[in-house]
């Protein structure tokens, strides 16, 4: 199977007539959440070509046609990208519908999706050569080109750093401090705050590993699970060459308490900030003590 290329899916090739204007379908476009953010995505430059809300086919949302099913929306627009804005109990059906219609990139915004449903969708997407980002994510942004998600525009600026984050607001905060220090972003991916992610940290690193237009990676993590530990091992095993700087939220959080995100919980040493930091140290990845410290660490790392 061909390697998944998120840039090609989101932006297309330079020769494409719709380069950087690839059609996107928004599932749940008529809901209050979906409509607010569809408006903001359009304003940012995203080509929101269609929306889907079962039972509302034939209507339009501020000039964007609405369909009953993903199959119809994909047939009409040729879209390969979908943004899911439906409430969690409807997520599984919406995602399966999108994959069956041939969607290649699913950006799953809803919080509170059962882990079982996420796993079903991730596995199904894999079997079809498709990819999910999220759920429980702020989305994906290519600054100054497009965004599929709920992030504000202001913190981001086009550039050469990739930002991967398990937290939404911290992605904004860290990107904003990078922007203010002259580090623009080539891409920002919200990994998501859930235990199971459609695109995990290692897979996100794979997406930028060979890209000449990405010169550094910032990874915003938090307590819970072992994604950071696995990533550190990946950086060592594959001699990942680009400078990497990390931040980990939740050092002071008590054990066995879920800190807002479903995935942010420490059991014993499993998922603890110390475990993550010590593994990063082995991989030569500096860990910022606070979000605002990230740009300075990146500057140092880039000089070496």
């Amino acid at each position, binding site marked *: 199977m061909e390697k998944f290329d998120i840039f090609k899916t989101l932006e297309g090739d330079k020769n494409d007539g719709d380069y950087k204007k690839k059609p996107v379908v928004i599932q749940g476009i008529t809901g209050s959440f979906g409509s607010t953010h569809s408006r903001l995505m359009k304003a940012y430059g995203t080509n929101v070509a269609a929306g889907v809300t079962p039972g509302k086919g034939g209507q339009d949302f501020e000039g964007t046609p609405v369909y009953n099913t993903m199959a119809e929306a994909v047939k009409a627009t040729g879209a390969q990208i979908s943004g899911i804005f439906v409430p969690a109990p409807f997520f599984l059906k919406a995602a399966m519908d999108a994959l069956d219609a041939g969607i290649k990139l699913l950006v799953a915004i809803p919080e509170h999706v059962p882990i079982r449903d996420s796993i079903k969708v991730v596995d199904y997407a894999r079997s079809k050569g498709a990819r999910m980002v999220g759920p429980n994510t702020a989305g994906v942004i290519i600054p100054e080109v497009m965004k599929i998600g709920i992030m504000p525009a202001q913190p981001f600026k086009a550039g050469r750093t990739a930002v991967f984050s398990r937290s939404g607001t911290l992605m904004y905060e860290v990107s904003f401090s990078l922007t203010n220090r002259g580090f623009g972003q080539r891409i920002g991916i919200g990994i998501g705050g859930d235990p*199971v992610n459609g695109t995990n940290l290692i897979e996100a690193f794979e997406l930028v590993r060979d890209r000449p237009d990405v010169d550094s990676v910032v990874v915003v993590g938090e307590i819970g699970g072992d*994604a950071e530990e696995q990533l550190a091992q990946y950086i060592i095993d594959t001699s990942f060459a680009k400078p990497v700087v990390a*931040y980990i939220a*939740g050092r002071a959080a008590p054990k066995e308490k879920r800190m*807002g995100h479903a995935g942010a919980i420490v059991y014993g040493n499993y998922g603890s900030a110390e475990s993550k930091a010590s593994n990063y140290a082995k991989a030569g990845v500096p860990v910022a003590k606070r979000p605002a410290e990230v740009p300075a660490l990146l500057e140092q790392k880039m000089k070496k």
Partner: protein
Amino acid sequence: MRLLEYQGKELFDQYGIRIPRSQLANNIVEAREGAKKIGIPLVLKSQLTVGGRGKAGAILKVKSEDELEPKFADLIHKEVKGELPRGILLEEMTPIKQELYLSLFLNRGKRCYSLIASAEGGVEIETSDNKVVVDVPLDGLNPQVAEDTAQKLGLTGNAVVAFVDLAIKLSKMAGEKEAELAEINPVAILGDGSMLALDAKVIIDDNSMFRHPELKEYEHVSELEKQAEVSGFSLVELEGNIAILGNGAGLVMSTLDLVADAGGKAGAFLDFGGKATTETIYEALKVISQIKHIDAILVNLFGGIVKTSLVAQAILDAYGNNVISVPVFARISGAESEKSKEMLQGSRAKLYGTVDEAIVAAVAAVKK
């Protein structure tokens, strides 16, 4: 949702996993009845969601009838790590030949269950060297894999059969109830090789609860948590005196770290989510006002598109309506910050340019 031991054992029982004879008692009358049914000697086990019950003295043996009342009275009022028990489980004493460890936990990276078993039961599994770990698909454990695991544990004869049966039942339960963890520590092997679950630690995926009405009765939510949930907030009560509010779990966690670095102690974690409106902030302050041990409120809000004057208004309303009286220290990145500073002049709230300044001021204020 972490189930109490007795709740986990009820699920075990439904799936045909053997458990000791037991009875839940909430008062001494129920305890006396339970003791009659089970017989003495028995064990009293405090029903708590926090770990380390044994070390904390929350599990007591009752060897004679006159020990029952004083020991029960001791346990029912005994707080462990800030938590009072929700009942005491009376349980028969079991003559044990050997103990095992068995659990299934949802492996995030591999997107399946991992079965962990060890021939040493009753120990911290993290520090155990002799453990067997195998991947188990969500739809259940293959009997051959279970048998291989039994052999690796050094089990023989009847114990192999009993282990295979137990592990298959546990994996069926975990899968059907959408558990993140189903742990039996220890499993008791009896003289005849049969097995008994002496403890139960079961954690259910909260987000799957909408399709598990049968588990609804196990839910235990305080009035405060209920109120927070209705408003769409994530709330975690902590032991310190500074309440931390913000828009995003990661941001609030990060603020908690910085407060700890500055020598302060967080008393509450509240993520009010994406909507930073006057109403939301006001509701959040209302929730916080009900936590008695809060001496200061720290607001950290990052949005880019947030009008800080909306937040300032919420704070003024909360003071005006006597919802809060403690000082508020706020860092809000957004528009109209000059106007907001003016609005808050003369109140007990102050806006700061950076989160560090707000934290330093909040920590200093609660130390006075």
